[in-house]
């Protein structure tokens, strides 16, 4: 490892622009003639549109154009799609209701877009939008998935009777039933996974620019995957053919999943730019973000976990109802199925598993992947259940987990996944040592003397990352492949540009990807530029989500580097009259091993481009591309321990320590990996203690639509975290990387709730564990 190579905590190359106000986010973009958009949105959760009257609004100051859904449909702009086909257990395909970018017949959630106003200033656009008169015939609304399935409830889409999208299963139901019937002990629970709003700090924004001379569109947008946005807008939404559409995702201020999807606003602003003849910029305000960004989680499950007389888990049966909101978002069908039920084995050898998942339409904003996406739901369900089982069985939660750990690899679970490598005991032991688990009883006693209730809880998580082997996901219904691409372009002076299909929106790729080159060739990272986020500059790529940029994106870079290295060595061998196999690259030089013959890197690059003296038949240039398609998922795993102290007078929870022990395989930049874990844990603590999206169940109004009402984790809600890493390198990719982006959000919620329920002696507690709920739970058992 060099000072900038693999394994070094290199400070980030991209930081200076963010720290000096020179970041370039979508809302910072400005082009000549640019105008501002504001969307007219439904104030009702469910209604028929009777009429839209724009006459007063059209004459308002500054108004350039007002456009509605009928015009969009007349121009053949397509409906928004879900890209992952799921079949119900009866073989029927999922029931996809129409999602129009601008509704013109029915609105199905508060915030559903109805019209776009384009004006000289944002203020004028907003004023005119208020003057657009939409007459609605208000219909009854339903916001909760369990209720939406019941008879007599409002029906959202004619395609989906009883609001049921699909009724899907995975695993062997008979085997799970048999295990439960024959069990020495069965732990049964009902588990709610609360609905969350992702809340990247940069609100979504888009700038649509139509060039009539070239019949060409440019879309600046807050996207985690600009190429996927271009593909979908071209192939399904009929905005423009791919060669006529450039999508640029410049600096993007966080995503957490919510910026994967192609929303109505990107489509409508591009279309509106052509209709009005001006570039159109739209920037979401925060309340609009709460109303319209895809939400996460929102599951209700029942679970039965069966044990034999030796406390070994013999079976697991799960029944889940998942709320997908008013329409099916891009990957919404995959989240509560293949990203959820496939992880229900956790870290444990469970011979029989069965999951039944029903997904449901409600009058709420669509629900899709949010940091962890299905895996937090699986982990919370399992880790709450096994913790509860340990209490019921009267055994240590650590020992019960230890007894059931998978210990030999590869391990085939009953729910599709083949775990390739892991050492769950190592993380458990590291976390227990770091938290001084054995000293807890004394700390609890000391807290009790102060009148405080102290509790400790753990969680052993596993997730599937490195998303994903294309053929495998294709066989499960995915509409796309999930490979990644890279091109390594060595300039004639030896500096390097790397074009990657991964997209960085906080992950630090401009540094970590450059470290791969520094490691390989000994070139300073300042001589390496990472280019991403622009479909004109970068070859087709699949973007960043599912902790895939290291395991998949970097692997593509490695493959391209292999080709560059091979060609550079051939050139160097030719120039130094040596055998290619004797060439080594070190510290920016190509050397003939065992001799003093040496060529600096830049001379080899220059030779490739002057082409005066290349090996016979070799093409000039030094530029190579690669596509990498993973052969398996990767399986990060770890153990989190949380210790809390609760004031029984107020129900307030203080996290007194939080320990994370993670196995991410090999690590490129430990500082950045730790940052990812910190952020993930904070979001997990947010889910467990603070955050909850609440719709009024009577009328479907979003109650938590601002930071005054939705409790974001703040600095004084959180402790500092104690981290450690274990390492079983991933065998399926060249760098041995597993991925680290989502672990914190996956592993932390059950650790926290296990700790709180341990402290208060009442297991009946739902997330978020607000002081009011905790206080009530304490008093319910007193």
């Amino acid at each position, binding site marked *: 490892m060099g000072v900038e190579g693999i394994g070094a905590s290199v*400070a*980030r190359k*991209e*930081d*200076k*622009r*963010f*720290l*000096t*106000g*020179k*970041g*370039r*986010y979508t*809302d*910072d973009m*400005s082009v000549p003639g640019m105008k501002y958009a504001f969307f007219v949105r439904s104030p009702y959760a469910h209604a028929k549109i009777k009429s839209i009257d724009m006459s007063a609004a059209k004459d308002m100051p500054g108004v350039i154009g007002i456009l509605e859904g009928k015009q969009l449909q007349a121009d053949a702009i397509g409906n928004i799609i879900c890209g992952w086909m799921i079949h119900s257990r009866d073989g029927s395909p999922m029931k996809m209701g129409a999602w129009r970018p601008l509704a013109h017949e029915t609105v199905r959630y508060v915030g559903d877009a109805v019209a776009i106003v384009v004006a000289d*200033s944002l*203020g004028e656009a907003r004023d005119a939008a208020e003057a657009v008169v939409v007459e609605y015939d208000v219909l009854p609304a339903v916001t909760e998935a369990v209720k939406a399935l019941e008879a007599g409830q409002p029906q959202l889409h004619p395609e989906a009777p009883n609001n049921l999208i699909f009724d899907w299963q995975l695993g062997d139901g008979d085997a799970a039933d048999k295990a439960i019937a024959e069990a020495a002990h069965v732990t049964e629970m009902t588990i709610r996974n609360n609905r969350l709003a992702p*809340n*990247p*700090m*940069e*609100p979504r924004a888009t700038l649509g620019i139509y060039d009539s001379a070239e019949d060409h569109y440019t879309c600046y947008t807050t996207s985690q995957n600009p190429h996927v946005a271009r593909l979908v807008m071209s192939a399904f939404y009929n905005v423009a053919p791919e060669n006529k559409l450039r999508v640029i995702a410049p*600096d*993007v*201020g*966080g995503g*957490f999943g919510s910026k994967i999807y192609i929303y109505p606003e990107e489509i409508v602003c591009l279309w509106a730019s052509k209709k009005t003849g001006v570039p159109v910029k739209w*920037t979401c*305000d*925060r*309340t609009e973000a709460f109303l319209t960004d895809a939400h996460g989680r929102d599951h209700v499950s029942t679970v039965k976990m069966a044990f034999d007389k030796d406390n070994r888990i013999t079976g697991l049966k799960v029944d889940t109802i998942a709320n997908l909101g008013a329409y099916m978002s891009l990957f919404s069908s995959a989240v509560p199925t293949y990203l959820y039920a496939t992880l229900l084995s956790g870290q444990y050898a469970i011979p029989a598993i069965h999951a039944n998942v029903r997904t449901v339409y409600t009058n709420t904003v669509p629900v899709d992947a949010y940091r962890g996406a299905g895996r937090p739901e699986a982990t919370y369900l399992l880790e709450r259940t096994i913790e509860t089982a340990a209490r019921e069985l009267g055994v240590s939660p650590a020992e019960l987990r230890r007894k059931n750990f998978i210990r030999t690899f590869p391990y085939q679970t009953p729910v599709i996944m083949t775990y390739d490598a892991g050492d769950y005991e190592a993380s458990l032991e590291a976390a227990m040592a770091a938290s001084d688990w054995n000293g807890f009883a004394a700390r609890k006693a000391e807290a009790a003397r102060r009148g405080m209730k102290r509790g400790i809880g753990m969680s052993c998580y596993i997730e599937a990352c490195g998303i994903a082997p294309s053929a495998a996901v294709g066989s499960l219904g995915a509409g796309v492949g999930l490979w990644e691409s890279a091109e390594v372009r060595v300039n004639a002076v030896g500096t390097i540009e790397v074009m990657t299909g991964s997209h960085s*929106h*906080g*992950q*630090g790729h401009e540094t970590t990807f450059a470290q791969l080159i520094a490691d390989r060739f000994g070139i300073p990272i300042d001589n390496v530029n990472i280019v991403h986020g622009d479909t004109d500059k970068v070859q087709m790529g699949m973007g960043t989500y599912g902790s895939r940029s290291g395991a998949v994106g970097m692997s593509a870079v490695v493959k391209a580097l292999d080709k560059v290295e091979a060609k550079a060595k051939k050139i160097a061998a030719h120039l130094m009259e040596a055998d290619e196999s004797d060439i080594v690259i070190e510290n920016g030089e190509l050397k003939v091993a065992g001799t003093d013959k040496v060529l600096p890197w830049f001379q080899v690059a220059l030779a490739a481009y002057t082409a005066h003296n290349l090996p016979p038949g070799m093409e000039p240039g030094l530029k190579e591309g690669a596509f990498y398609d993973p052969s398996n998922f990767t399986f990060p795993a770890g153990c989190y321990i949380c210790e809390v102290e609760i004031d029984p007078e107020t129900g307030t929870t203080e996290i007194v320590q939080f320990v994370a022990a993670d196995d991410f395989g090999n690590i490129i930049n430990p*500082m*950045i990996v*730790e*940052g990812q874990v*910190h*952020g*993930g*844990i*904070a*979001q997990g603590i947010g889910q467990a203690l603070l955050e909850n999206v609440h719709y009024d169940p009577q009328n479907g109004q979003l109650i938590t639509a*601002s*930071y*005054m009402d939705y409790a*974001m*984790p*703040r*600095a*004084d809600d*959180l402790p*500092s*975290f104690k981290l450690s890493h274990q390492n079983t390198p991933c065998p399926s990719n060249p760098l041995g990387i597993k991925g680290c982006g989502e672990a*914190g959000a996956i592993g932390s919620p059950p650790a926290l709730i296990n700790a709180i329920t341990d402290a208060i002696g009442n297991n009946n507690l739902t997330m978020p564990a607000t002081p009011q709920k905790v206080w009530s739970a304490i008093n319910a058992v007193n």
Partner: protein
Amino acid sequence: MAKVKMTVNGRQVGAECEDRTLLVHFLRENLALTGTHVGCDTTQCGACVVHMDGRSVKSCTILAAQAAGSTILTIEGLASGGEMHPVQAAFKANHGLQCGFCTPGMVMTAVDMIRRHGANLDEATVRAELDGNICRCTGYHNIVKSILAAAAEMGGVQQAAE
């Protein structure tokens, strides 16, 4: 419309703007200083923090007209001569930022916090003082570390000068 004049990052500036224009929009739209960000509508997130006459303020909650005649420092004006301010340098050294969106507000808040507390800052104070700045990426761990490191360094410099 009114002409609003103020001093921003050491320069006298003036521009015509609507009466309802907020300071943050004046900075971003009229002066093209896009380093100051808007992350919410309710004065909660602090992405828009700038200094007005030496004190940190949320520029989303002040009309441009209210700032007329004042001296404003934004994130763009903090570094001097290409050299980052010690707080900026500390954020880089301690990985106190990820996506960078909340960062300008965090840094401007931190500079003001250190001005008021000096080297006496401790973790609990930093966390309490950050109540008005939301970050979704870092879990605050490295932001707190960055601010404490900057405070120690800046306090040290002050002591050395005395």
